[in-house]
């Protein structure tokens, strides 16, 4: 593989992994604080799956750049500074209320499901294999979160208002998920990854009608100020400070 392609692939895998890991971390914050016991259990499962997906993408990255599968992911997660993370801002935002977290998860799940649908046919076989494994879990997530979004949209006036507030805040950030990364043109040409613009169109075709059916208004498309994944919010600083605290205190220890 030529160096440019490797670099583009590495950048893309890192972004995917960071998205999943940070989102899974946010999801895990609900465990013990969910609105009902069954959701403490159910949403923890989604958190476990997303963190697991992060591990899968970090592992593919390790393989690609010749690093150890066991140690490299931990180095990336526990010893990188916030500025070096490549997640989209939507996953950094703090968990908010239940409406916020359910909507964020729904927007992400519907994106990830469409993405994986395409990736099972990627010309880069490790990605195709990984996508095939992840896809069943994502099908389940989407079934769960779309059920919640519809019910909260249509339930009571209060739940509808909270969902509307959540969409108003999250929609611009969601669009960043489809922003092209540097080197993406090469990945699209080689059929490693889909054209982000096509993915966005497919995603909107599914998500917009679904939200409107749930009596939720979708804001007009205005991508948030930071299109680049090199720019992060203060939320990420705080999140990583907690996440990395113990590992950084004892840098030469194994766990």
């Amino acid at each position: 593989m030529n160096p440019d392609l490797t670099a583009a692939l590495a950048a893309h895998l890192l972004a995917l992994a960071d998205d999943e890991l940070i989102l899974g971390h946010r999801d895990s914050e609900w465990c013990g604080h969910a609105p009902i016991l069954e959701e403490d259990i159910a949403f923890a499962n989604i958190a476990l799956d997303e963190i697991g997906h992060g591990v899968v993408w970090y592992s593919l990255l390790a393989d690609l750049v010749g690093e150890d599968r066991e140690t490299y992911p931990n180095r990336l997660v526990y010893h990188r500074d916030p500025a070096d993370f490549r997640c989209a801002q939507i996953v950094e935002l703090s968990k908010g209320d239940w409406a916020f977290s359910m909507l964020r998860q729904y927007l992400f799940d519907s994106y990830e499901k469409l993405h994986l649908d395409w990736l099972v046919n990627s010309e880069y076989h490790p990605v195709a294999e990984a996508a095939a494994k992840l896809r069943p879990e994502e099908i389940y997530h989407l079934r769960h979160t779309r059920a919640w979004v519809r019910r909260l949209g249509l339930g009571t006036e209060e739940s509808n208002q909270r969902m509307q507030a959540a969409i108003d805040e999250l929609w611009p950030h969601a669009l960043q998920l489809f922003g092209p990364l540097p080197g993406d043109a090469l990945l699209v040409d080689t059929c490693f990854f889909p054209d982000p613009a096509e993915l966005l169109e497919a995603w909107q075709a599914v998500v917009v009608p679904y939200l409107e059916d749930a009596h939720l208004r979708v804001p007009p498309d205005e991508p948030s100020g930071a299109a680049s994944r090199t720019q992060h919010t203060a939320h990420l600083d705080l999140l990583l400070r907690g996440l990395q605290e113990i590992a950084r205190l004892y840098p030469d220890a194994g766990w």
Partner: protein
Amino acid sequence: MYGATVEPLEDSRADEAKLAAFEARIARGEKIEPGDWMPDEYRRQLIRMISQHAHSEIVGMLPEGAFIARAPSLRRKLILLAKVQDEAGHGQYLYHAAETLGATREAMIEALLSGKAKYSSIFNYPTLSWADMGAIGWLVDGAAILNQSMLAKCSYGPYSRAMIRICAEENFHKRQGQDIVITLATGTPEQKAMMQNSLNRWWPPTLMMFGPHDSDSPNSGVLTRWGIKTKTNDELRQMFINQMVPDLLALGLTIPDPDLRYDEASGNWLVGKIDWDEFWRVVKGDGPCNAERMEARRAAHADGRWVREAMAAYADKYAQDGR
């Protein structure tokens, strides 16, 4: 361990024959199912024991839950999250068992959040370091497993079946805790010191989990006769001590008990005096974390109210026959 204090049985004169038949069923090893005749006292004792057990699982999620965000490796993060998720699941199975006796979740939750219901006092201790995840998994869950294995043989069908499911899953909790302790005890000097500090704090309260000495336990007789309790507090406690001490010593850790000694004659490791004043203080709500954890549970419940209402409203409007 879970509400082991018992009030004396009152004479149920009208149901003497039924009571004799009931006790004969238990003596034959039969399971009591919902719908079978049972003394009011049996029903009351079980609801209290089972719901306290459920509450313990739920409150127990919080001390460990605090470390999910800070787990120092990806593997440990996944494992701890799965463990805490299991604890929610165990609470769920147990609330179900209590519901088969006529208790409602709404009432049980209300009792917990108002401070009326008790839960295992071990969950009122703070978690101060990552090593505490090892101590809780290996010691606290290890102690719970001894108690739970006994309860899996309980005469009440739904409780017994819930406990069998829980026991199958709990072994993973203990093993992952032991894995953490081994890793730290054989790790860097700082990790070993962290583990020793953790053991110093968790060993005494874990011993107290088994409840007061047999000589101080009022009337466990009826619990034994009704097939709810088949081993005494001291018996279980001694089993635990004998299991744990050799392994902890082999790892180069010291047990925080200057009076600990091995008795050749009985084959038992004997421990020094237990500080029961501390136990009763914590049980009565004076432990370091009682208030904080109850507040967290109350907040989650209050914050979730609009959610529960919205989902119920949707079902009323759009779902038919509960679909």
